[in-house]
Structure formats: structure tokens, C-alpha cells
């Protein structure tokens, strides 16, 4: 049945729309975007589902281009079903999942398995990211053409940097030939390996191993230099340092094929959050200084940073009940990313609403060459509805994700996703009150 979303303020920077419009979705695609569409005039034999979105913001479906789903291999941490439910709850209609599963997604057979499981259990689009190197070992590049054929939209050894400059060069040359970007977790491991937080006064006070921003800057410089050498698209994952933001800014000015993303935790928190050995704020790269955080905000504003991604990294609860050094890196983010972006960036006066939305839509769609990211006619029928005023309290026990590891527990944030529409089906709805999730949506994973 067609879905008619009525009365929302529609913002789509890809086509330059900001107006109160109705959105008609038929056969899983955007059919019409116009004022006052009459449900009776649509001409559907069984009628039309109408969603009253008066007072809400309607945007193209949000895309989280950096998620760890833990399936295959670690379903006790998360699986494709729980992870995509968390995505829908957070307002995402599509996610890209990293290759560091067990086994690693480094061959087409694993990619196909992920696609099959997504068709069976996902409630939003799932775009697999293949490994750059076999087993993430940093030695040989994977069968990238084959993996692309199976559905991979990018390649990354995330969790680890692409280990050597030569491997990065080969990966960029080969994937560039396929028109697919390499996404790098940029750290010089000789400076950061075994270091559990940002270098600075807090690490000095706590006596914790310190990871300097130079570690990131050096690797970002290496990667940009190789993107120039090869002319192939490079994307820097979770950028954190002021130096790295400036390197990307400079590279873009000079026309290098470089993009980057920032995470909500890095643009919201600093290493001060580690006070008292708070291991809920332990991630890699680590939370940085206030000057670095300000550089992220400036980079988001001037377009240096193209996308916001959560780096959703669920962990098993027993693995977290250990001393700080032994706690695994990473935090969950699918259900807090949009509320944090609204509160910190929009209510905080850093970005306009349209700019913020573009970081979740146009930006990631362009980087990964995905079909969504816009509401123009013929685009996928994916819509994220936002309520900018509704309070969202972070209660980890209520997450759809199996992960509970977040530094934001107890925070009351202003603004959140009100509903998530995938292929014209309302998969998440909290417009009227308590959230409901409707898993009855047919996902053909990967590109359509």
C-alpha cells in the first residue's frame, strides 16, 4: 500500500528543498513530493496509508556509514537483527557494516552470507564493507572485484589502520579501478598501540597510556599523499585531531579525492570524560582535547567533514567488567547519534538543520555511491522524521542494541528521530508516545 506522509517540513539539501510538503511513496520509491497531496486522488485501489507528520521534520533516510554489527561470529554482542533494529530506533534507514567480524568479511562468500542474513532479519538497508586485507592482517589485498559483485560498497580494515604505505597504495589503485573508496582507521600504531586514551593532562594525572594526536596526523598525511598519487577515493574514518582536520581541509582545497567523517562522541566529549577511570568513554581513536573538538565543529561547518557516523561498537557486558586497560575500545552509537547531532550541532548553533541533515544523508550517500540520500522522485522510499524538541533520555537498558556501552547514560537530550520509513514502510514510530518497531519490511540488502 502506498504511504503518504503529510504535513512535515521537508528538508533535502540534495535537491535544495525546505518547505512544508507531502511525500507520497509507492512501490518502495518516492513517487511525488508536493503540497497537499489528496489521498483519494492517488488512485491506489486499496487506498493509502496516511502518516500525519505535522510539526515534524522530514528528511531523506539517514545513513550511518560506520557500524559494527558483530555478525557473523559474535552474535552475543549484536547481530544483524538487533543492530538494524537499533538503527531504525535511532532514525537510520541504512547502515554500512564493517568487515571485522569473525570470520572477517574478506571474501564474497562472507559478503553473501551477510546479505542473506540481512534479507532474513534486517529492518533497514545493510551495505557490507569488505576488508582491505585478507584476515585484516595487513599483508595481501582481498578479491575486491568479487566482493564488489557480492555487494560490498567500500573496503576497510577498520579497527586497524591499513598497515603499510605500500598496501594502502595497492588498495587505492585497485579499488579506485572499481570506483570504490578505501576507508581508513588512521593511526600510526607505533605511536598508539597499547595506548588507551588521549595524550594530555588527564592521561598524565591518571597514569594511563597516552595516544598522541600525532599518531592520527601522520597516518592521515600518508593516506592523503597516496590518494593523490593514485587519484583514487579515500575516506578517513572517525577523524579526531585538529591537525588531521587541517590536512583534509588543505587536501580538499587542492582537489585530492578525500572525504572524512566525525562521530557524535568525538564532537560532543573530550578526554575529561575519562575522569575517575570511566571506561565507558574508552574508544579508539580516543576522545581528544577541547581544541580538537572545536576543530571538528569547525570542520563540520565548513564542509571539511562530509559525514557523521556513529562507529557503533557493541560489546559483551562481561568484557566490560574489568579494569580500564582491559576494557575493549568502542561505544554504541546508533540510538544516540541523531539526538546528539540535534542537541550539540543544531541547538548548539554549530550547523543549520539542513547542514546537519546533509551529514547523515547526502554526505554518506555520495561517499559510498548509495542510491539514497535524497527525496527526489524515483529515489528509495526512505524517510527519517525528526522531532527537534522531544526529549530523549539515554537509558541503555532500553536500547534495541545488545550493547550497553555508552558514555551518555542518563543524559537527557533535546530532539530525536520520530519515525523511520524504509521502502515506504514505517519501521519505527514514536510520534504518538512509546516507540514501536515494525519488523515487517522486506529488505533486499545492498543496492537496489
Amino acid at each position, binding site marked *: 500500500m502506498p504511504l503518504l506522509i503529510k504535513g512535515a517540513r521537508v528538508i533535502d539539501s540534495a535537491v535544495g528543498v525546505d518547505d512544508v510538503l507531502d511525500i507520497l511513496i509507492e512501490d518502495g520509491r518516492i513517487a511525488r513530493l508536493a503540497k497537499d497531496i489528496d489521498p483519494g486522488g492517488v488512485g491506489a485501489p486499496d487506498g493509502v496509508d496516511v502518516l500525519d507528520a505535522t510539526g515534524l521534520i522530514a528528511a531523506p533516510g539517514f545513513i550511518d556509514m560506520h557500524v559494527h554489527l558483530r555478525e557473523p561470529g559474535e552474535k552475543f554482542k549484536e547481530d544483524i537483527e538487533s543492530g538494524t533494529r537499533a538503527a531504525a530506533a535511532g532514525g537510520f534507514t541504512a547502515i554500512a557494516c564493517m568487515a571485522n567480524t569473525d570470520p572477517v568479511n574478506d571474501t564474497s562468500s562472507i559478503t553473501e552470507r551477510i546479505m542473506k542474513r540481512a534479507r532474513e532479519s534486517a529492518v533497514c538497508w545493510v551495505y557490507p564493507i569488505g576488508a582491505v586485507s585478507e584476515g585484516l592482517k595487513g599483508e595481501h589485498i582481498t578479491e575486491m572485484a568479487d566482493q564488489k559483485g557480492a555487494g560490498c560498497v567500500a573496503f576497510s580494515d577498520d579497527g586497524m589502520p591499513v598497515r603499510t604505505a605500500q598496501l594502502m597504495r595497492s588498495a587505492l589503485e585497485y579499488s579506485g579501478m572499481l570506483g570504490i573508496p578505501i576507508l581508513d582507521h588512521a593511526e600510526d600504531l607505533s605511536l598508539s598501540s597499547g595506548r588507551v586514551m588521549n595524550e594530555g593532562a588527564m592521561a*598524565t*594525572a591518571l*597514569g*594511563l597510556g*597516552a595516544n598522541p594526536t600525532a599518531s592520527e596526523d601522520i597516518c592521515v598525511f600518508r593516506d592523503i599523499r597516496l590518494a593523490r598519487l593514485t587519484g583514487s577515493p579515500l575516506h578517513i574514518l572517525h577523524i579526531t585531531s585538529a591537525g588531521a582536520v587541517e590536512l583534509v581541509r588543505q587536501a580538499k582545497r587542492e582537489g585530492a579525492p578525500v572525504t572524512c567523517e566525525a562521530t557524535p562522541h568525538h564532537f560532543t566529549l573530550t578526554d575529561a570524560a575519562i575522569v575517575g577511570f570511566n571506561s565507558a568513554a574508552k574508544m579508539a581513536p580516543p576522545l581528544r582535547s577541547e581544541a580538537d573538538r572545536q576543530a571538528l565543529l569547525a570542520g563540520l561547518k565548513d564542509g571539511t567533514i562530509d559525514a557523521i557516523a556513529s562507529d557503533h561498537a557493541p560489546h559483551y557486558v562481561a568484557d566490560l567488567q574489568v579494569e580500564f*586497560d582491559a576494557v575493549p575500545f568502542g561505544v554504541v552509537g546508533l540510538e544516540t547519534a541523531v539526538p546528539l547531532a540535534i542537541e550539540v550541532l543544531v541547538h548548539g548553533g554549530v550547523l543549520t538543520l539542513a547542514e546537519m541533515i546533509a551529514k547523515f544523508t547526502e554526505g554518506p550517500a555520495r561517499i559510498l555511491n548509495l542510491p539514497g540520500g535524497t527525496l527526489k522522485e524515483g529515489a528509495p522510499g526512505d524517510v527519517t522524521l525528526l522531532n527537534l524538541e522531544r526529549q530523549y533520555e539515554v537509558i541503555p537498558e532500553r536500547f534495541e542494541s545488545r550493547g550497553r556501552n555508552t558514555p551518555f547514560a542518563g543524559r537527557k537530550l533535546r530532539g530525536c528521530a520520530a519515525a523511520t520509513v524504509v521502502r515506504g514502510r514505517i519501521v519505527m514510530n514514536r510520534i504518538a508516545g512509546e516507540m514501536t518497531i515494525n519488523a515487517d519490511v522486506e529488505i533486499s540488502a545492498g543496492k537496489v
Partner: protein
Amino acid sequence: MMPEQYRRKDLLSIRDLSPGEILFLLDMTDSFREVNEREIKKVPSLRGKTVVNLFFEPSTRTRTSFEIAGKRLSADVINIAASVSSAQKGETLRDTARNIEAMSTDVVVVRHSASGAPAYLAGELNCGVVNAGDGCHEHPTQALLDLYTIREHKKEFDGLRVSIVGDIARSRVARSNIIALSKLGAEVMICGPRTMLPAEAESLGARVSTRVEEAIEWSDVLMTLRIQLEREAGAAFPSAREYAATFGINRKRLEGAKRDLLIMHPGPINRGVELSPDVADGPFSVILEQVEYGVACRMGILYLLAGQREEVDGGPETGGSPDGPAEARPESTEVRDAVAH
């Protein structure tokens, strides 16, 4: 600054403490020192109490000091030498400690290679936790015994100049001492090769120097730290020989020193590296006094945490009068009785 009743469940870091609490712990040390000078060095204060030394790193001095302290208070003291590697294979730190607590342990004394491990355990356990050194974070009882030693000789901390020489970045002894001395009004200088100074070293509240001669001339007290020859050679310093030549304290270097300089070291000494043998055993050295006072210092802490648990459960904000339970004060009758036994 006046002593201020110590009513915490744990002793985790000097950073947590007020200047008054530090002074209180130094006064407690005074009360218990006399016990160690008797012919029969034992009082019944902690009879029926259980203290477990849970050490995940090898230690002779600190573990022995806590063991003697507990035994002189008549506590049952159990030593567990656990290894981090075996713990990682099987039981977690949390489970190990909870099992020990389930055996009705009153105080767990923890040493661990991970910064923050005792603080983590303190949040998980109802019994008292003493940090006996965690990673590169803190070693609060070492700082307390060092301050006690300094006070014995210098009387006042206000304006006193103390320099700490060695691997500051990786030293929990340095951190606890810098913080404690600063809280009591002393001036602190840290000195070592750049590779051994932490990032934003000034943020610790100390002056910073890379010239040991400068530190020596400036100081009333010179604390030297053990160099981790086995772990850091080649990374943080080129060789023991080069370290001794550039930062080692020897008689010649001390020519510019004040005549009443104190030289301290937390042990164990690498003789001929941090200190030349004649300096280690020389007139400025108070190294063995540090060890002696360490026992009294730890007696005071075990007494407070194991003996007063009923009163201190619930943290510093609750229970008792503003002065705290009278029997916990060192000048109180019970302590005097304990000491008089």
C-alpha cells in the same frame, strides 16, 4: 591546616584526599610508630580481622610492609601472588576480588599493573580497598610514608623544596608524592630526561627540569626513583651507563647541594645508576627510615579501614559527629590502649 578525620571506605589515591586527611594519616603513623620500637611488637587492635594482600605484580618491600603491619595489629594476613596473565586466561580481577571478599575479608590490599584497577575494585566491593600501587597512576601509602619521613626531619612542608628525579612518566610514586606535597604547601620540581617526563608535565603542579644539577642546587629534599632497567632501556633512555652519567646522584654532583639535604628512594635501588653506593649509604640518606616508617604508616591505614568499618560504611558524608567517631581519632582512648598493650 588541621588534621581532619579519615572516614573513607578505601585508600585509593592521594588526589582524593584533603590536606587535613593527609595530616590525619601522618598523625596516625606517629601513634603506631611506638609499637614497632617495643620488645613485644604486637597489639590486639585488629584481632579477628582479615587482611588480604592481593598482588598482581611482584613486590617484596610493599607486601612485606603491609604483612608486618597487619600482623603487628593481630590481624590475619593472607598473601596472594596473582599474575595478570593467568587472570586474563581465566578469572577476571572482579571475580577474584569478590571471591576473596566472600570469605569475610575486611581489607584487600591491591597492587596491579593497570592504572585504576584498585579504584575499579573499590566500586565493586563492600570491604575496604587499599591501593598498594596501580600501573603508572598512584602509590598513596608510599607518598604518606615519604611525607612522614620528610616531616620528621623538616617539621614543616610550607615552602619546602622537593625534587623528584627519574622516570616521572611511568612512576606512581612520583604522582602520589607530587600531589601530596603540593597539597601540603611544598614546592615540587620534577627532573629527568624528556623521554621520562609525561605530556603536559606542568599540569601535575610541579616545575620541570632536565638538568639534575639544577634540581640538586634547588632542593631541600631529593627523591630519586628506581629506573626500570629491564623495561625501558633503549626506549626511554639509551643505557644504564648513560643515565648514571647524566642523571645519577653521586658525591661530586652533591657539591652544590644544601648541607641539610635529604636523599630518599622508594627502593629497590639500582646501585650505581640512580644513586652511587656512597650516597645511598651516606649522611644525607634517609632511605632506611622510609622503610621503617612505612610499617607504622600502613598500620594506621589498616587500623582505620579494618577497625572502623562499621562507622565508615556509607562514605565520608555519613555517620557520626562532624569530628567522626571518637574512637577512631589517634589521640582517643582506644588507640592509646591499643598502643599501650
